């Protein structure tokens, strides 16, 4: 009885995907069209699939520079986050019965409720006077901004890890750092994957923090380049859409290959 396929739900869901896919379809066809073709039926396929718009968009937006910046910031952020947040969460999770660590735990996770604008203005003065208005500074700040949520889910995960292995290792003469790197860190693998995915997505797509922190346009990440580009070339839709498509493509390609882990990661993250 319960193994019958629910066709009503299947059909409704398939129809619903139109809402998701239509804007993406539009992006692809406009990116390939010429300005002359825009006056006709917008939804029609382009007459030829040339790459002129893309070549021009790559030049105008200095695409590969922005791509490099985005990749750099994202990788730096993920490395900082995985190495440090897991360590912090481990120390907190194993000492939650102590007042100081309990305070630290709530101190960190309370940041989830602090809106970015409240720290934005002073933070910009501080980072520019300390020479942190660059990509490395952005990576470090990302590490600070993501601490709240990551400590929250890492601590939840460490609590589920059995303590016996650690005790055995300590008896064998391992110190606390060795216990962490050799036993706990590898055991946290599923959570590392979740945290890495969510952090990478957030860092890659982030707009507000780079907008206020980065002062030099050669350091602009992909979203910032789209923002700057929009101000200058707002009327050339074909060029603009080619550049949107280029900016979205790396994540979409990645998604096609790792969507199973992304979806699984978010579900695991939300189940704690």
């Amino acid at each position, binding site marked *: 009885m*319960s193994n*019958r*396929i629910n066709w009503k*739900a*299947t059909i409704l*869901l398939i129809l*619903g*995907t139109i809402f*998701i*896919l239509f*804007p*993406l379809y*539009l*992006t692809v066809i*406009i990116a390939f069209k010429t300005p002359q073709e825009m006056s006709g039926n*917008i939804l029609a396929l382009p007459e030829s699939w040339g790459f002129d718009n893309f070549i021009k968009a790559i030049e105008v937006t200095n695409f590969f520079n922005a791509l490099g910046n985005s990749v750099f910031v994202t990788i730096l952020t993920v490395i900082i986050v995985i190495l440090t*947040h897991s*360590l*912090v969460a481990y*120390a*907190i999770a194993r000492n939650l019965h102590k007042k100081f*660590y309990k305070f*630290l735990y709530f101190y960190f996770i309370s*940041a989830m409720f602090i*809106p*970015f*604008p*409240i*720290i*934005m*203005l*002073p*933070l910009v*003065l*501080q980072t520019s006077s300390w020479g942190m208005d660059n990509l490395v500074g952005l990576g470090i700040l990302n590490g600070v*901004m993501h*601490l709240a949520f990551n400590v929250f889910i890492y601590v939840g995960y460490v609590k589920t890890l059995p303590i016996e292995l650690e005790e055995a290792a300590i008896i064998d003469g391992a*110190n*606390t*750092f060795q216990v*962490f790197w050799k036993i706990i860190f590898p055991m946290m693998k599923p959570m590392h994957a979740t945290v890495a995915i969510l952090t990478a*997505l957030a860092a890659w*797509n982030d*707009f*507000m923090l780079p907008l*206020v922190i980065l002062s030099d346009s050669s350091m602009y990440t*992909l*979203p910032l380049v789209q*923002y700057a580009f*929009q101000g200058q070339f707002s009327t050339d839709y074909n060029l603009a*859409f080619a550049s*949107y498509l280029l900016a979205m493509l790396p*994540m*979409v390609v990645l*998604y096609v290959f790792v*969507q199973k882990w*992304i*979806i699984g990661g*978010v579900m695991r993250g*939300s189940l704690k």
Partner: protein
Amino acid sequence: MKRDHAFLLMVIPAFVLFFIFHTYPALQGVFYSFTNFKGYGNWDFTGFTNYFKVFQDSRALSAYGFTFQFAIVATILVNIISVLIAMGLNAKIKFRKTLRATYFLPFILSVLIVSYIFQFIFTHMVPDFGQALGIDALSRNILGDQDLAWIGIVIVAVWQSVAFNTLLYLAGLSTVDEQLYEAADIDGAKAWSKFWRITFPLIAPFFTINMVVAMKNFLMAFDQIIALTGGGPGRATESISLLIYRGGFEAGQFAYQSANAVIYFIVIVVISVVQLRILERKEVK
């Protein structure tokens, strides 16, 4: 003893960095909110003057009005749509993996770029379409209309957020025991009562999280707005974040917008706490 030192070594650097780059700027923001600091140069203490001014500032009040209106409507829509999609994706459907992957796609896309794409849809495609079909309601660019622009922002925000909220609901639904539905079937329960009596109470904690997180995120809306309308037409869609950004960086209102940010922070905390209280009370029942 030595172990305690090791644990301290693990947390102290993070604590220091977090304090320097998060707590200290927040405290500074609160400090400057009592001054007339412009972001540069000299300043004096002015007490609560900035705070009184925010409450009399029609631009700030309209930003709060718009942000609340947008956040409430978007939160409700996102949650209704996400529950429906999650239930569909959780059912015994064909192409399950492909459908899940498709519905989750918006989550990985940049809000800014998605907003630019929708801006084209609202300003060019929909009006052209409306004119071709002679439908008056669709022939206008809603983003250019003071009274309707917020609807465009709601549509984009919902389009983007449904993915993540659906995943959270899906996680919730995966914890529900199938046997409960089979028992309900034997009792002859209808779909509607199965939802309200079984599904909804069991995913109530996920409903609470979704409501609070969605509301908080929408109250902080920035990317969608800067890309879709830039706060316009006029100031009809200027959100609080956008106002603080503009006033603070472009108009020399550092101290004044710091006061606004403090009020904004208090508003978000109060709303989140009230939501949690109300929704958690419902959960127990």
